């Protein structure tokens, strides 16, 4: 379907997965660059919920990444992982561990697809089981709760 909304679309393709997709007005080599360059990731990953205090990316297979953020009203949250597959401008596979729940490692497959100069970014998060997947989604809830509720009201109100 032709969805023109600029909101990220989050779907749950299976019990263990989360799929995040969004289209960008830029060629994919730039989206890939913004996704994998520490100085650039620092500028967007914070989502206006705080500041990124650390962003390390060792972009090679077997290399690791670590993001640390100070979230307003919540303190520090940290994520890390290891790159498993890298196809420049195309595809990135890495593990992802939320350090608040270190046993629930996920495998993230990020794809960059360009059509007519626009790029669709998709992030498929594969968890080992449904419980870990659910914890992962809930971890996004706390700080954005007020915004989420406002959004929810408008979404449900339009149904």
């Amino acid at each position, binding site marked *: 379907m032709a969805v023109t909304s600029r909101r990220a679309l989050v779907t749950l393709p299976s019990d263990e997965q989360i799929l995040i997709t969004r289209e960008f007005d830029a060629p994919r080599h*730039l989206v890939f660059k913004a996704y994998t360059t520490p100085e650039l990731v620092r500028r*967007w990953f914070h989502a206006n919920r705080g500041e990124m205090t650390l962003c390390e990316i060792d972009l090679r297979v077997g290399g690791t990444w670590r993001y640390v953020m100070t979230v307003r009203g919540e303190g520090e949250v940290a994520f890390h992982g290891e790159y498993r597959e890298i196809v420049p401008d195309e595809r990135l596979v890495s593990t992802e561990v939320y350090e608040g729940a270190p046993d629930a490692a996920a495998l993230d497959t990020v794809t960059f697809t360009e059509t007519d100069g626009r790029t669709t970014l998709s992030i498929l998060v594969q968890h080992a089981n449904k419980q870990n997947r659910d914890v992962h*989604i809930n971890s996004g809830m706390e700080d*954005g709760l007020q915004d989420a509720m406002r959004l929810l009201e408008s979404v449900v109100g339009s149904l």
Partner: protein
Amino acid sequence: MARAATTTDAFNAVAEPRRREILDILSGGERAVNDLVRLLGTSQPQVSKHLRVLREVGVVDVRQDGRQRLYQLNGPALKPIHDWVAGYERLWSDRFDELDVVLEDLQGKEQGDGGDE
């Protein structure tokens, strides 16, 4: 967050991409099965199967209108799902809004450099 069994069913029901598409279409108003078949470009048995699942978990209602059966969204049944995923979706939406700004900068720089990175 613990979820009741029926809610889990609703979650599973909307996890399927085709069923998400049906819900997207129905969010624009009620539709007959034939409309859905046409808009989705799939077969009637497929659409009927998905509609049955959606009705079973209560996120879609049906009413008879003459010879047609019209399907509509049941908003309140969808609320727990929106509740649950909305915060996460909002987080990524905000992230990507910031990423838009970064990409605009990068594109400006690329053009400034005559196409070189």
